[in-house]
């Protein structure tokens, strides 16, 4: 469905995604997992065409979205949805208008029909009756759920989820995770889910991609990942504080910094 070929992205000196090949199979859930700053969001933005890659190509079906016209890309996006890490609801519109936005833009459905669809999608995320609230009046978790409803309202063929459950209580997170799984299996949606929640990721995904420092360090079925002998994979899956993946992103040991500061003083 979506393929990245030698896909890489740098911001100045920072290499967010090292050139990599990636394949997102159709009608399946692909989970992208990895530590903070490992390049998951950047990879998602590259795959959706929001970000231009520094090198490489993204193929959407048979088409290269890195080379296509803006108009064509916007046409393709009518079949895409995205849940942003920080929700990105339109501030000037209330919950109802946010969720109805894609329908108003791209369909000629009558308002009563749109109202029904919106209330159904809001019911799925447990927020029916909150239509009149403005985004500024929502909690972070509620905004996330509205963003989820908005991404799903057109029944898109491909949906990108950037941490759809972060900031949610365990029950809501469970509901959302199940929704992604059910929708993917029932209506053949292609889902790309970036998540920190290892157990949820492994339980709903058909394919798992594990990233570290802009590279893919493991990929395969959840079984493959669970049974991997790679020490980095095991450390991540089990959430162990110690192991080959350092927690600190600093490049110099803290003790050196302290000693140097002491010497200068």
């Amino acid at each position: 469905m979506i393929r990245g070929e030698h896909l890489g992205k740098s911001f100045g000196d920072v290499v967010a995604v090292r050139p990599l090949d990636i394949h997102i199979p159709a009608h399946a859930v692909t989970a992208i997992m990895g530590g903070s700053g490992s390049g998951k969001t950047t990879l998602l933005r590259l795959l959706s065409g929001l970000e231009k890659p520094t090198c490489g190509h993204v193929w959407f079906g048979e088409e290269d979205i890195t080379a296509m016209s803006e108009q064509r890309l916007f046409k393709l996006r009518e079949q895409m949805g995205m849940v942003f890490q920080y929700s990105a609801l339109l501030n000037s519109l209330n919950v109802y208008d946010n969720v109805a936005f894609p329908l108003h833009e791209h369909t000629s459905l009558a308002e009563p029909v749109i109202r029904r669809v919106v209330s159904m999608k809001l019911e799925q995320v447990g927020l029916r009756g909150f239509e009149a609230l403005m985004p500024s009046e929502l909690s972070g978790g509620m905004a996330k759920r509205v963003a989820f409803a908005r991404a799903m309202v057109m029944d898109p063929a491909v949906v990108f989820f950037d941490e759809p459950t972060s900031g949610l209580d365990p029950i809501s997170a469970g509901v959302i995770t199940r929704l992604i799984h059910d929708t993917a299996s029932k209506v053949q949606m292609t889902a790309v889910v970036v998540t920190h929640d290892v157990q949820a990721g492994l339980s709903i995904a058909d394919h798992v991609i594990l990233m570290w420092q802009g590279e893919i360090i493991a990929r395969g079925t959840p079984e493959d990942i669970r049974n991997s002998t790679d020490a980095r994979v095991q450390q991540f899956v089990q959430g162990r504080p110690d192991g080959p993946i350092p927690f600190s992103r600093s490049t110099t040991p803290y003790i050196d910094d302290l000693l140097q500061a002491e010497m200068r003083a």
Partner: protein
Amino acid sequence: MSAAIPVQHGIWRWLGALGRRSLQAVQSVGDAAVLTLQALGHLLRKPWQGRHFVLQLHALGVGSLVIILITGAFTGMVLALQGYYTLAKFGSESLLGAGVALSIIRELGPVLGAFMVIGRAGSSITAEIGIMRVTEQLDALRMMAVNPRARIILPRIIATMLALPLLVAVFDVIGIGAGYVVGVELLGVNPGAYIAEMTAKITMHDINGGWVKAIVFGFMIGSICTWMGYRAEPSTEGVARATTRAVVVASVSVLIVDYILTSFFL
């Protein structure tokens, strides 16, 4: 001798910085022009953004009306006072009406109106678009297959371009009216002479000049303020800086272009 090297070094560095800044400035102007042209390109393409033009026009026009009324009134009043003081020295107070009206129509209406719209509406356009960028709302629009250039940038450029001439017209009328009140009622200029001189001295050329200026300034304000927001650094300070810069750049550009238009065309 040894002192010459650091001095030279300093000059080189200064020249280098100057060159870099100039290049950046040229690049920015080019970038803003490209964004504006791309946005204008959507004028010819579906879907039409008619409803959004009207919404923006309403927000801009109604939002700036009160401040335009106040500045228009006080500008007319102070012009009448100052004009009377000057003209009385030559014994030609009867020209007061023409003086006030000409200054307002040709110059002060468009320029002060533009300044007020920059401060009242332009800055908020920059801040709004900048915040939409920081909070990824522009990206969200793109993912929902809505082009922000068509939906966000274009209606705001067109709306400022249409709103400014209308606001300037209001400014002119109020200013001339207030000038009449001060000149005739307060300072005792003959009302017949005031009106007669005014209608005799003002030509259609003057009025059209005012229109042209207002439309050009409106277009510039729209392009500059939307571009500044669209290209704001995606951070809180970035948006704050972009807003300040939009106000400064737009105001200075209005003055420069005002001089060029006045000297060459009008």
